[in-house]
């Protein structure tokens, strides 16, 4: 489609689409916030756990409490190392009585699958890597439900956020459709057979069905600015194998009251010892754009932390960033500086998420 392409963890992916078809990072970002945008997210991985002890297996490796999931329900979680740091973040979907689907990041497909397989051997459950079987397409934005409903017999208005359903879609039977996404907007992710013919047919049918809503194909550039505005973590930035759950501020997805899971012991100790650094949201007050890896300085120009992700925010029209700083100076309103090409530029700690989608009243 004439997109600017880039290599991403072994995948050839679009950064942004041509302006001539309504693309460009800013236009794509705004389409998702006000209408609908679609993403080919097939690079994401899929691991299926099924069997009599599938729940026990998931509970062992995932920090959230999967026993709360009804069939058809999903939750955000993470796989942790024994040190309480991140293997990856994940969305856990309960597809059946004893069947769970973990959707994981592209860059960590092999690592995650090996980790899951190696750490669930003691449970009576099959672990399958289904990553190559699915093409995954995300349809995101307030008009996403209107677009997708045209293409499926599943009743999408009955699907609550973070729930899934199955239905006939674009002539394909029993397609998994989840009301999930990585944009901080309402939207869906669909999982279709990964053969080239099916994938491109469905992609084009979605584009055609979305014409009346001004649908725009979106690339990695907008994917990043959208998730950043919503403070959604990106592996390798806000979360990694050297960052723990408390530092990353993901407490509410970590159910310490669960009997046991990998990483629980270390997290208990870390919490008791006091959390030294904290992920905060920054808004630039001076003229400049904070970017990934830039240093955060205190008022005396001493280095105190670093930016994990930083960018202009197209919807908010501000320059924002997420950064790790010492816990004692993480309060909202704290003034700091970000070092940009040798100069300290003013920034302030702000509440996060930077953006929250408006509540639908109907």
């Amino acid at each position, binding site marked *: 489609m004439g997109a*600017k392409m880039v290599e991403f963890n072994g995948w050839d992916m679009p*950064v*942004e689409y041509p302006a001539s078809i309504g693309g*460009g*990072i*800013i236009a794509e970002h705004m389409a998702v916030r006000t209408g609908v945008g679609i993403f080919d997210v097939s690079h994401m991985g899929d691991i299926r756990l099924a069997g009599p002890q599938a729940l026990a297996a998931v509970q062992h490796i995932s920090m959230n409490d999967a026993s709360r999931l009804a069939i058809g329900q999903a939750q955000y979680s993470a796989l942790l190392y024994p040190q309480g740091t991140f293997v990856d973040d994940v969305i856990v979907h309960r597809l059946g009585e004893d069947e769970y689907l973990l959707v994981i990041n592209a860059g960590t497909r092999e690592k995650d699958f090996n980790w899951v397989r190696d750490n669930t051997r003691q449970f009576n459950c099959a672990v399958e890597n289904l990553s190559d079987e699915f093409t995954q397409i995300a349809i995101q934005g307030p008009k996403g439900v209107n677009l997708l409903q045209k293409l499926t017999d599943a009743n999408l208005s009955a699907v609550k956020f973070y729930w899934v359903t199955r239905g006939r879609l674009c002539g394909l039977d029993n397609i998994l459709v989840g009301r999930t996404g990585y944009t901080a907007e309402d939207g869906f992710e669909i999982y279709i057979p990964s053969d080239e013919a099916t994938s491109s047919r469905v992609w084009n049918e979605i584009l055609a069905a979305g014409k009346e809503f001004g649908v725009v194909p979106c690339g990695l*550039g907008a994917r*990043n*600015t959208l998730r950043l505005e919503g403070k959604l973590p990106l592996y390798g930035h806000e979360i990694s194998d050297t960052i723990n759950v408390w530092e990353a501020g993901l407490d509410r997805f970590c159910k310490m009251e669960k009997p046991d899971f990998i990483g629980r012991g270390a997290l208990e100790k870390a919490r008791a010892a006091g959390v030294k650094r904290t992920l905060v949201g920054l808004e630039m007050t001076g*003229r*400049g*754009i904070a*970017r990934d890896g830039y240093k955060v300085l205190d008022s005396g120009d001493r280095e105190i932390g670093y930016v994990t992700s930083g*960018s*202009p925010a*197209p919807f908010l029209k501000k320059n924002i960033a997420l950064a790790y700083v010492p816990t004692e100076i993480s309060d909202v309103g704290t003034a700091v500086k970000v070092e940009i*090409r040798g100069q300290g530029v003013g920034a302030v700690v702000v509440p996060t998420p930077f953006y929250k989608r408006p509540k639908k009243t109907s």
Partner: protein
Amino acid sequence: MAYPTDRKYTKEHEWIHVDGNSATVGITNYAQESLGDIVFVETPKVGAELSAGKTFGTVESVKAVSDLFAPASGTVTEVNGELATSPEKVNKDAHGSWMVKMTLKNPKELDALLSAADYEKFVAEEAGH
């Protein structure tokens, strides 16, 4: 596209329009297209000394920071203040959006720069990769 013949070009995609001993500098249409939405332009202050081939500022898109390279040596006499508030003007009209005006220290430096025709050829080869 046909690049304006009233100016010269660099391989780093800047243009320089000469008027006597002064010159105006900006970036080319190819540059703005490659960059995507431009959100920030950082230029030197009036009085700053520019050195041919050395960086003199930055232009930022949503995703990336790109250096601006001086096409010629000289002193900055004026800076386009509009770009501080409306950097997107560079996307809309790259050849009409000047960034700095300068006096030229050594006009002969321009002989080494590309003509519109040569720049067009250069860009066609770049785009072909």
